[in-house]
């Protein structure tokens, strides 16, 4: 319960539209400090959109998003960029800079944001690469790495500045069982070792729930469920059950919203 009194992120009555399409119809949720929060839900439910709203890359139509007490959608550009130095993001694609080596990718935020000398930067970079198990790959180029390795390098870069929170956008997509296991263990270990607040957006429900302390389920433009993974598994809500069991029929429609077929033919 204490985590509810001290959330790191609070989403309050957020309404968000993409052009005419309503994505969130007044959602509220919280991300507890120092825990792993999983954001799950069907495709198109707006999970990644929520990450972008938290990072201030999108602005809600109404409502507020608070990160450590700061209202993200009211921050000035400079304040927002300062706040982002306290966040790390692992993008789905890794988003490594293709013209820089693994070492230079991880060193990049350190060179831009700190005054550390080259020796210290080298030490920090090698430590971060050691944490993700890729110290030996420091001189390789991104195109020489597998998809999973690229994500681990991106993770090393995301933690280079020792952020307070880290957001993972679909970190397990396209991973073989070994790569998936490595990333799962890494997310859990980093969260504990660095005392991070972690948010994991994922479709891999079983794996994500295995490491999560808190779950936010998005569906049909609202927060369909929020609570612990145990509470989610025990929920009798039809929508939650449909999602957990992967049923094609239920509250989440298979068909995208459209008028009846007979009316249009």
């Amino acid at each position, binding site marked *: 319960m204490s985590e509810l009194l001290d959330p790191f992120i609070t989403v309050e009555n957020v309404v968000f539209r993409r052009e005419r399409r309503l994505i969130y119809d007044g959602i509220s949720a919280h991300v507890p400090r120092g825990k792993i929060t999983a954001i799950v839900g069907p495709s198109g439910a707006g999970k990644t959109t929520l990450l972008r709203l938290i*990072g201030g*890359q999108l602005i809600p139509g109404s409502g507020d998003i608070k990160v450590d007490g700061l209202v993200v959608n009211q921050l000035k*550009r*400079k304040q927002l*960029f*300062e*706040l*982002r*130095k306290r*966040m*790390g*993001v692992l*993008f*789905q*694609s890794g*988003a*490594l*800079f*293709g013209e820089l080596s693994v070492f230079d990718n991880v060193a*990049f*935020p350190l060179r*831009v*944001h700190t005054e550390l000398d080259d020796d210290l930067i080298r030490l920090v970079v090698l430590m971060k690469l050691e944490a993700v198990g890729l110290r030996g790959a420091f001189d390789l180029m991104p195109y020489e790495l597998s998809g999973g390795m690229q994500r681990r390098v*991106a993770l090393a870069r995301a933690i280079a*500045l020792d952020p307070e929170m880290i957001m993972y956008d679909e970190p397990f997509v396209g991973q073989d069982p070994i790569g998936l296991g490595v990333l799962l263990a890494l997310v859990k270990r980093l969260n504990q070792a660095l005392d991070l607040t972690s948010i994991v957006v994922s479709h891999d429900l079983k794996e994500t729930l295995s490491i999560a302390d808190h779950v936010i389920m998005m569906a049909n433009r609202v927060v369909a469920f929020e609570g612990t993974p145990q509470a989610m598994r025990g929920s009798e809500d039809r929508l939650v059950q449909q999602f957990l069991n992967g049923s094609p029929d239920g509250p989440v429609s298979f068909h995208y919203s459209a008028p009846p077929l007979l009316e249009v033919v």
Partner: protein
Amino acid sequence: MLGYLQRIGLAALSQLSNLGRAGLILAQAVFGRSRAGIHWHLLIDQVYAVGVLSLSIIIVSGLFIGMVLGLQGYTILVNYGSEQALGQMVALSLTRELGPVVTALLFAGRAGSALTAEIGLMKVTEQLASLEMMGIDPLRRVVAPRFWAGVISLPILSLIFVSVGCLGGALVGVSWLGIDSGSFWANMQASVSFYDDVVNGMIKSVIFALVVTWIAVYQGFDLIPTSEGIARATTRTVVYASLAILGLDFFLTAVMFGGI
């Protein structure tokens, strides 16, 4: 009729909105504050990418256009017994018009499209978003160095184009068609005014550089992040930049040489 007017209104509003966004992007990239000030190393890298790597196409094109001018000019001037004025004709055509315009068109095709594609690909692969989330402004880090590199490089390329073009004209006129070398160069020197011709040509070139590079970086930064989006934006860069160059050239020529 009402629907037609609505469509025109919507299209106009959309274009105005694009222009506003392009202006904001340019203003933030050029005038926004950066903790590290000007990123000189990034600027030098980009001057190399957009300027130095465009040298070969500029030199080859300049040489051939100068040669064609020499040949065409000779066939006309010889009818009036004025072939000695070939140097004057080649130099004035190049400094006032062909130098700035053709260089800018080649620059739009070679460097402008590359700038759009590069920035666009960075957007598609989430590198721009990743910079933002690292607390680094992509407008200052990615767009600004490319913009200034274009503004610096194009006028210099234009000067090189004009110089090589004059040599091409001399190659055909003097070495091949036998015009007296002294007449060719003396006529050129006597008739080309530094302020009226060379400086005005350079002013044109600087304005073309601002417009072409602005269009290129904006199209890259604002594209729809798909492979088709990159293709469309790259095409738009070349088309819009070419039309802007030709339209502006008429306007600038009218102001500089037309007495408006």
